[in-house]
């Protein structure tokens, strides 16, 4: 804070202003060019028509056309691609299924992740870095490989069925592979570190004397948990939930490898439109709609993240 005040009081010398400009502008320009501008191109593409050409679309307008050219091309804009998507049950179902799987998955992650994070935060202090490392380590190993590992476990002649059959718990192999259940297992498995770590960060910071005070005043432990621990860990709950919910909604690999052909998710649909059908305009329209759905959650997440960083200062 002291640095900020002195910044404002004295006139910064040339070199300091140049430093400031470099520090802000380099990442700003990079992200604007490679993250912000491309969205505009996607939006533009979603208004074009598909064509059998390379690249496979009829261009809308280019910068070289000039204002009159733009006006003429603007009349050719069409919302056909959006009409196709909204009018087709397949796309609507895929959107709904993605949101459903992301919501259920996030809820399961919260229920499984909370006890783990809670136990980590209460472990002896010298154990905590090792436990954090143990949660992070699977996250560092390939996502694709971790999803792949579940194919061998879940398929009809896989290890889970062999184990259950061997124990006599089931009479016939369970059909888990290529169902929504398999997708949920894959989602929960892959995203667990993303849920546990923000929860742990919030729970570890918590002032434990509050719980002692509650206990001294005769509050039973479960009530203290609901009225003190849970509200204080709310930032972690929000961060973890959004960190999981948003990417799960657009997930491609998990539904493709574990969900089979029956599970439609919108990320996979976009992937198929683009790579198999080579329909770039419809793929772009799907991307725009997905972005519209997710922009609210993304803004909540971003604000939470920024606030947490401010609080740490």
């Amino acid at each position: 804070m002291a640095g900020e005040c002195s910044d404002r009081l004295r006139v910064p010398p040339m070199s300091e202003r140049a430093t400031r400009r470099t520090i802000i502008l380099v990442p700003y320009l990079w992200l604007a060019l490679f993250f912000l501008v491309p969205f505009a191109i996607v939006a533009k593409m979603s208004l074009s028509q598909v064509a059998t050409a390379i690249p496979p679309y009829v261009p809308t307008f280019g910068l070289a056309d000039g204002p009159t050219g733009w006006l003429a091309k603007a009349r050719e804009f069409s919302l056909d691609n959006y009409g196709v998507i909204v009018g087709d049950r397949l796309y609507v179902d895929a959107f709904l299924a993605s949101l459903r799987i992301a919501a259920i998955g996030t809820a399961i992650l919260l229920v499984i992740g909370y006890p783990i994070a809670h136990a980590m935060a209460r472990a002896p202090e010298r154990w905590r870095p090792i436990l954090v490392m143990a949660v992070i380590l699977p996250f560092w190993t390939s996502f694709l490989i971790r999803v792949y590992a579940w194919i061998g476990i879940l398929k009809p002649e896989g290890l889970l069925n062999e184990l259950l059959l061997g124990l006599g718990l089931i009479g016939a192999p369970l059909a888990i592979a290529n169902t929504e259940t398999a997708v949920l297992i894959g989602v929960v498995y892959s995203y667990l570190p993303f849920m546990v770590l923000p929860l742990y960060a919030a729970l570890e910071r918590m002032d434990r004397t509050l719980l002692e005070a509650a206990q001294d005043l005769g509050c039973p432990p479960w009530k203290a948990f609901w009225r003190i621990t849970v509200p204080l860990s709310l930032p972690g709950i929000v961060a973890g939930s959004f960190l999981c919910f948003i990417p799960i909604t657009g997930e491609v690999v998990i539904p493709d490898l574990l969900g089979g052909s029956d599970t439609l998710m919108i990320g996979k649909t976009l992937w198929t439109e683009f790579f198999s059908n080579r329909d770039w305009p419809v793929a772009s329209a799907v991307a725009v709609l997905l972005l519209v759905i997710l922009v609210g959650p993304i803004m909540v997440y971003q604000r939470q993240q920024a606030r947490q960083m401010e609080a740490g200062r």
Partner: protein
Amino acid sequence: MTSPRSRLLDATALTLGFAFLYLPIVILVIFSFNASQLVTVWGGFSTRWYASIWQNRQLMDAAWMTAQVAAASAAFATVVGTLAALALTRYARFRGRTLFSGLVYAPIVMPEVITGLSLLLLFVSLGIDRGFWTVTVAHATFTCGFVAVVVQSRLVTFDRSLEEAAADLGATPAQVFFRITLPIIAPAVVAGFLLAFTLSLDDLVLASFTTGPGSTTLPMRIYSQVRLGVTPEINAISTLMIAAVTVLVIAASLATKRSASAH
């Protein structure tokens, strides 16, 4: 104050949680040493699958390509991400700061299909040939937000009086940065680089969208093989990747611990 019952609950949560996280990986590693072609029936110990991937030129080329992309993109992401972290922690107000912080954090959660498609369309409309550099730029854009978060968490606990002292003694801003700031935040910068490196190694979706002929990465190769079915060869290459990452992570944590105790 923790009762035996709650301690039992904690122990159960940790045991089940870690079993869930590690069992699939352990099973995968065990079956990579399976002599049998079948992935779920044990046919004796063998290293034949390791020998066979060694001879698989396509796989080896893809692995080399992936390592190069990961190194280059992590280098870019580290520079961009560290600068972004500095901008967000040091300058409380500048024009477009809200948009800026959105641009830094959003790529972390943005579904990769959206980022991938939009970057591809950017490269197409700029008329850039797709290949090594387009994948590298895509990965750097996706990972620099992670670097920024890691570096930022170190910067917020940074004692700025050290920088002010150096500046008062006549150090130029560049000298202050390279001789004071950078050494202090170095562990976080290294951690950010490694995170960006492994995220790039791992990425399938962005690479599929932004790559061109001749620049197939390892995850793309693995993906196309996995879709054809589970083979012990994939278990073997997975095991090698897991071993490489584990060694890297442990080395990095030892290095940061040493540098932390040196200060």
